[in-house]
């Protein structure tokens, strides 16, 4: 499973970080950093939640 974020769409509102801080981190520079590009399988439900709740529709889950 791979996380792809469309950074042209991302609005840095950190909703994904609220869902899964181990994978998504918005730092004080207001940019989103992906901490694990290929999260382990046990994180799948959280990744799906992040995809659903990203207000910008910027997150995609592949595989």
């Amino acid at each position, binding site marked *: 499973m791979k996380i792809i974020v469309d950074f042209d769409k991302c609005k840095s509102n950190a909703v994904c970080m609220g869902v899964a801080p181990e994978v998504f981190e918005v730092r004080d520079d207001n940019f989103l950093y992906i901490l694990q590009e290929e999260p382990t399988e046990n994180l799948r439900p959280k990744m799906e939640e992040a995809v659903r*709740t990203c207000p910008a529709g910027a997150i995609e889950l592949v595989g």
Partner: protein
Amino acid sequence: MAEPLLENITVVGASLAGLRAVETLRREGFPGRLTLVGAEPHLPYDRPPLSKELLAGTWEHDQIVLRKAPYAELELELYLGNPAAALDVGKRTVTLATGIEIAWDGLVIATGSQPRLLPNTPPLDGLYTLRTLDDCFGIRTRLDAGARVCVIGAGFIGAEVAAACRSRGLDVTVLEMLEQPMVRGVGSVIGSVLAELHRDQGVDLRCSVAVDAIEGGGKVERVRLVGGAVVECDLVLVAIGAVPTTDWLIGSALTLDDGVVCDSSLLATPLVVAAGDVCRWPNALFGGDLMRIEHWTNAAEQGVFAAHRLLSGDAETPFAPVPFVWSDQYGIKIQCAGRFTGTDRMELVHGALSDHRFVVIFENDGVISGVLAFNQPRQVMLYRRMIAERASFSDALSFAAANQ
């Protein structure tokens, strides 16, 4: 106790909450007949950009579709442009305005909310509210033609429309009944920060004023204020809040009181759940007080939760989130999480109000009840988590001190 196995689920309201509900039902393997009914002719689209990118003219319709994957995968019976007119809970049917009767054994109510109207306004050309794509394109056409705009109400939508007008270089007047924008929610200190922001950007913001009449011969020409002052304009946007769309449920045996009243698991009555702007439920995180929330994240999360509730029959797990909302104005990301009463104690914990980069937190009954920030998304999420954990206000202050 598990509900009987459902075979035939109908979702009324084809927007964010309704879409998330049908997507969740299929993802969880619901194999039966699934019907989605919507009043608007469009497939579900995203509303927040209507007062932001779409109105500013930087985005188009294709950028706000809510579902990119093919609809065929959802195997829906889809009725668009065909509002539900009546619900019969006993017979388990929904009747559409066209007379079509749809039977169900599980129902999701997701009809959202609609703009509150000013009483006694004549039907003038140029008088708008903003809720739908069609409203947005109507307003946009007028802005393209250089309309002078008067916005009534300085809430989120009014403020964003004013910002969009200024980004186009248009004159805009904003009329607010209270002494500051959004003072009822976020209090007068933040209210005055918002007021200053708009004035700095060239908005003619007038607070503590009351509208007497919207006047014109066939089309909008002016707004007259109590006391006699007059605002000359070509377009009036009434943005004084929203009311839940429950007219089609009157007489249906559901409890309607500023929304469809549900239990803590979003169940309105057996086999019927509600989600999104239309739903009012007791939020266990805030002492079980009834809440109705008109924000994107809530609609998305309730759509998912309500679908699970219907399938699982689980009455024990409450829906108890920390409400969250954002607004974009003049390139500033305004975000709030929690509950705001307008009278909570407020503490500035990061940055400075005048820099447009700060975080304030609110206290209610010894716990942190809310966070509001300009351009500090990371911090909002950290405090949102503390609100969810019902952390004490003093713990929140210590956390802030350690995080400077």
